[in-house]
């Protein structure tokens, strides 16, 4: 049967679009990872040292090439404040590029924890279906129906504003997603022929679940990771923005935006704008990467 041409195209998205978006995502994520690893060695100033004239605007864009050339040739001794300074006298450029170490670490560790916990519980819930695992799914449903941001705020504020507590709170809130994804995949895998074959060979059920079903059920959760990391960065920044996240003077994007928020109605745009661009690009990069991986997996 032949369908109208546009309907057929709806089933298979064009491959080219996936590729360039995928590479945009990869480059953004690589830059962020690089900064998370090496920012302390490339920052011009200490990001937690308020030792500069406060509220200095960044140099005009037209001056940038000259300043750059001056730095390269050694004509300018002190590194310029590329992004200006904030109301406390911090160098914004150093802070913006130091933030991935805080934001990305929180997001990566939280995601790894919830991925581990969620996949394990999802495997158990999908492979061994009984009253206990069904009860666990109901608990997971209740957890998932919590308003995410407010729950995160409650957990972090009441447990104490520390990096560890942010990580634990995010991990708790993201685990149900992985439970659900893995459970659904395990349920389609456990009726496959290879499971029956493994059972016929006399393998124990726990061995079949861990050695054979688990590796085949990982893909949806791994793909979701990229999206979750992005959202975890957003949530971390949001928490700091309302004062329930990391403590100042830690270089963190949400905290920097919040410091600049009081100045922006007075026209000082730079303390908020630069960290915002950084979050915006980073989260977009992770979202694009996740989307591209998802399409690749499906095709």
């Amino acid at each position, binding site marked *: 049967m032949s369908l109208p041409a546009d309907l057929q195209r*709806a089933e298979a998205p064009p491959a080219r679009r996936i590729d360039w978006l995928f590479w945009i995502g990869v480059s953004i994520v690589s830059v962020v990872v690089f900064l998370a690893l090496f920012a302390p060695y490339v920052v011009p100033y200490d990001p937690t040292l308020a030792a500069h004239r406060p509220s200095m605007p960044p140099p005009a864009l037209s001056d940038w090439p000259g300043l750059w050339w001056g730095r390269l040739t050694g004509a300018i001794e002190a590194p310029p404040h590329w992004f200006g300074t904030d109301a406390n006298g911090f160098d914004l450029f150093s802070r913006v590029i130091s933030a991935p170490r805080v934001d990305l670490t929180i997001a990566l560790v939280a995601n790894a924890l919830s991925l581990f916990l969620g996949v394990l519980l999802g495997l158990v819930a999908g492979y061994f279906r009984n009253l206990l695992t069904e009860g666990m799914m109901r608990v997971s449903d209740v957890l998932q129906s919590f*308003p995410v941001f*407010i729950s995160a*705020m409650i957990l972090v*504020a009441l447990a104490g504003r520390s990096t560890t507590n942010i990580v634990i709170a995010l991990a708790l809130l993201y685990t149900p997603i992985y439970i659900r994804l893995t459970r659904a995949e395990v349920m389609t895998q456990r009726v496959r022929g290879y499971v029956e074959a493994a059972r016929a060979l006399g393998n124990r059920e726990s061995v079949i679940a861990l050695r054979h079903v688990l590796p085949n059920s990982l893909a949806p959760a791994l793909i979701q990771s990229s999206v979750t990391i992005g959202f975890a960065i957003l949530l971390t920044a949001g928490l700091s923005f309302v004062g329930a996240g990391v403590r100042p003077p830690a270089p963190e994007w949400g905290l920097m935006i919040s410091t600049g928020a009081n100045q922006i109605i007075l026209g000082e745009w730079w303390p*908020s704008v630069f960290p915002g661009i950084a979050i*915006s690009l980073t989260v*977009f990069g992770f979202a694009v990467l996740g989307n591209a991986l998802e399409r690749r997996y499906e095709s």
Partner: protein
Amino acid sequence: MVARYIFRRILVGTVQILSLVIAVFFLIRLLPADPVSRFVGLNSSAEAYAQAERNLGLDRPLLTQLGHYLGVLPSEGPGLLQGSLGTSWVTGTPVLTEIGQALPITIELLTFAFAVALLISVPVGMLAALRPGGAADRGVFAYSLFAGSQPEFWWGLLFVYVFFFVLGWAPAPLGVLSPLTSPPPPVTGFITLDSLIAGRPDTLFEVLHHYMLPVATMVFILSGPIIKMVRQNMVRALGSDFVLYARCAGLPKGQVARYALRAAMAPSVTLIGILYGFMLGGAVLIESVFSLGGLGQYAIRSVLAFDYPAIQGVILVITAISLLVYLALDLIHAVIDPRVAYG
């Protein structure tokens, strides 16, 4: 049939809310926060500390506190069963009164934002679905991916800078009314409706003017997922057998599109409702940027002040409204799509 369905859903919902409230009650008391020292200060004497602890009722066993909150101990005064959410530890006002003032603002914000977002997203999503893989579709795809992953509080600030500071089109981000305007006498609590009832079109205009930027920020964030969803459902509907049949029967293109739209709207309505419930708690950051004084800002204040009754109240109200919205949506869904049966 329908009445029995609604009754059963409300019954199940009540049990869900009750278990959630109890869970939250224990959760916030298990966390190592010390609200007492928050109220009396860190260097207070032991007597002052004990006195404050007694005033907040935190010296009693947990189960007694829970019984008091739920209202099952008649000697302790009214609780949840009598329709009381307790009194705020910070202000001393009943939590129900405070939420009653904050909630209408959040609902107004969300309703305006959803109305505008739908007006924009539905045609755009349909346009993208008509030619999957075309230029419009690719642009829409990139936009929805971008807008769906943005820090909304930063965009709010950016809008404030551009439209308030640079252009001067928007009012300062300081609430829903300028401080010089007296608010209309409260009848419904919704300030737009109240100014209409009071016959003050200028106040109504001023409120809408203040809502302009927060609504724009939220529309920007919301339209991403909504467009994506409308597009997906429309593509699916256009590819279904009944549309193929309608085409084969030689019906005009516009009529076929109308059929497909109706089929595409049904699942969209459900997802939009879920998004609405989600945004009740997700509007926190936008409310905070524009100091709107809605439920989200009330949540921030309560959490940062360790105001337990207020925190419990916020969670309770948000969950209850979400569940009611879901119920309403399932009913609407059945009206739009006759294939759905009450199970």
